[in-house]
């Protein structure tokens, strides 16, 4: 049992576990909507679009979370706007905006003289470097997002399941979609530190998708997703600690393994039923 507790002797590992599990749980809550509505691409796009915000904040010595939030939210709200003006599909608009924004981030980064290793940790994640102040921000934003989902649960559910009937009932479908996009954007901002902009989408999608294989009710998908996500985070951090591998990548890979395990178990079960 020694190996289970020994990582916790280090303060940075305590913070990493706390932050990682918080982020994992939050991602699964929001990710349930992302998976069931087929929004993985836009999730990935918002993560990449947040990157120039991170770089700008870094250059200006401003708050990184604030910079990322501004860019992610602006992209989330800008997609619908640009689609309507340019008469392109949302899909195409997302492709244009996220690649453009990410390129801006890379370009800005290349202008910085000297040391930019900190910024690389935002590309690929470094949960081990999370500070107490970061933890406070993560906790506050996570609470905000979960509260919003809890308060608007009915409305987000009907808009996700049957937007046409929701609109016929008089629900402001567009506004609710923007609310959901904003919640996804905030979740991504919180998660960037853990797994980095490149891998955030996995945290958002994989645990919820795994849960959707295992259960057939919305709240249970969310609950099981949260548990799977926390499990993947913990296992990933142990792997990272003992094998000395990148923490973000380890968390994502454990998640992926859990997904295929669930898929295999489901196939076995349905095979046995036959």
């Amino acid at each position, binding site marked *: 049992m020694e190996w289970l507790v020994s990582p916790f002797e280090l303060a940075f590992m305590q913070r990493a576990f706390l932050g990682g599990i918080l982020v994992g749980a939050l991602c699964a809550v929001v990710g349930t909507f992302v998976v*069931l509505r087929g929004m993985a691409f836009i999730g990935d796009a918002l993560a990449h679009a947040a990157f120039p915000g991170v770089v700008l904040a870094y250059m200006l010595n401003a708050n990184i979370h604030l910079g990322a939030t501004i860019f992610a939210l602006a992209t989330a709200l800008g997609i619908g706007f640009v689609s309507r003006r340019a008469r392109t599909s949302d899909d195409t608009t997302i492709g244009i905006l996220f690649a453009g924004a990410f390129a801006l981030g890379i370009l800005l980064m290349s202008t910085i003289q000297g040391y930019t290793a900190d910024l690389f940790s935002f590309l690929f994640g470094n949960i081990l470097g999370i500070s107490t102040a970061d933890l406070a921000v993560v906790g506050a934003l996570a609470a905000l997002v979960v509260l919003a989902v809890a*308060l*608007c649960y*009915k*409305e987000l*559910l*009907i808009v*996700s*399941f*049957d937007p*046409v*009937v929701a*609109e*016929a*009932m*008089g*629900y402001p479908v567009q506004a609710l979609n923007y609310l959901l996009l904003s919640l996804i954007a905030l979740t991504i901002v919180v998660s960037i530190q853990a797994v980095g902009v490149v891998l955030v989408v996995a945290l958002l999608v994989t645990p919820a998708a795994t849960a*959707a294989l295992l*259960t*057939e*009710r*919305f709240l*249970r*998908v969310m609950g099981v997703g949260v548990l799977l996500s926390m499990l993947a985070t913990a296992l990933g951090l142990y792997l990272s600690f003992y094998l000395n591998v990148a923490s973000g990548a380890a968390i994502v890979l454990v998640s992926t393994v859990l997904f295929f395990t669930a898929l295999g178990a489901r196939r076995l079960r349905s095979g046995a039923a036959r």
Partner: protein
Amino acid sequence: MTQRSSVSGQRSARAPEAPWHYCLEVRDLAAGYEGTPAIRAISFAIPPGQMVGVIGPNGAGKTTLFKAILGLVPLQGGQILLHEKEAHAQRSLMGYVPQIDDLDRRFPVSVRDVVMMGRYPRIGWVRRPGADDAAAVRAALERVDMADLAHRQIGRLSGGQLQRVLLARALAQDPHLLLLDEPVSGVDTTTQHAIFAVLESLRDAGKTVVVATHDLNCVVERFEQVLCLNRRLVAYGPPTQVFRDSVLEETYGSHLMIVRVGDRQVVVADEHRHRTHPVRRPERG
């Protein structure tokens, strides 16, 4: 505009005393997204307590008409009144049963979850469903004979069962006007009978029921009014008066014919006849 082509023979005898002359009134409607309207020149009025069938070929604009009434498709002209006031401002009085193909059947919701959605506007924001909502959901499920499958995930239902669930959701909403898009196409006869039994009881309770359908024989048998649509209003009135060869030809082109069996009219799709060789059908009374 050739308005109100044939608003005749309104039988409102069944309807209980209603304060409104018409439940739904559509005046010279044109609707659609940008550019040429998908439907135009549509005027009709339905008193409370009637069941109206909407027929027309694919692409005739049946769904667009419904969506325009519900405020989901922009109006390019005309007016839609519900109880003599703008329909858009009274969405909670209108129930909509969409085509089941539009739904994601893998979505992790149970039969009961879906029917409960019909109560959402009543429950209001933030608040949670209460005991009376649960009772209303149960009653709606019993009406469509789906109470024993209340906890089943919707992907595990047959098409007919899912159709009944969507009807139950609309029942839970308790609307004055109910719009159903192809509720009986491709469903089993049990479901068809169950659905019509419910619709007829709604009509008898003074509600207005509008059903888009492909089944013309069903229209003849069950509906007091029929609305023939082909991007514009071709005819509106009781099926016995409206179903003439000329009207059906204008609605569908010329591949339908009406056969009289005893005292019933039967509509037969004649798929072998070439459009270029319209064969004169024997005149009926």
